[in-house]
């Protein structure tokens, strides 16, 4: 008899293997027989083929890069010019992230996501330059 967490891990691995075959946007639904001991009774697991979690970290990095620029400008460790450059680059990265994953049910555009990441690296380099 499998423990609950072992069962969840096995199901997650199985769904991961199935992801390549999944219809984009389809939900994976898993139901098991409910038992009086602590097995899972039913649940809809993470939707396969959607992009939002693929870009969540990048969106966060984008916001944090702007926050860092604002802090650095206020601390006078970067120039206004550097801050303006960061804002422009961040706007460009945002456009790529929007295109990479325009909606919850969309499939990830890897090229646009990678373009955003390249721009985020440029922003980091801009913030590293001494005024």
């Amino acid at each position, binding site marked *: 008899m499998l423990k609950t967490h072992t069962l969840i891990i096995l199901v997650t691995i199985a769904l991961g293997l199935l992801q390549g075959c999944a219809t984009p946007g389809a939900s994976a639904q898993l139901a098991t027989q409910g038992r009086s001991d602590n097995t899972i009774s039913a649940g809809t697991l993470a939707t396969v083929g959607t992009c939002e979690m693929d870009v969540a*970290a990048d969106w966060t990095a984008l916001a*944090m890069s702007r926050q860092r620029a604002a802090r650095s400008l206020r601390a006078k460790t970067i120039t206004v010019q550097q801050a303006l450059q960061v804002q422009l680059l961040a706007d460009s990265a945002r456009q790529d992230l929007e295109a990479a994953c325009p909606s919850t049910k969309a499939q990830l555009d890897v090229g646009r996501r990678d373009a955003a990441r390249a721009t985020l690296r440029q922003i980091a380099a801009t913030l590293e330059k001494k005024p």
Partner: protein
Amino acid sequence: MTPQQARTVAAALMAAADKAEAQGSDQVETLAELRALDDAARADLAAAIKDAGG
């Protein structure tokens, strides 16, 4: 992902989950929350630039 980024993502997801539950929805609008996060950061940077005479 750095620990700080992970905490920021987690906070955005929690806020989105709270909002979904308050609206009686079973779908979390993660992207909307992430966009709002960047909107706020953009506005703050714009304010900092303006204050610095930019």
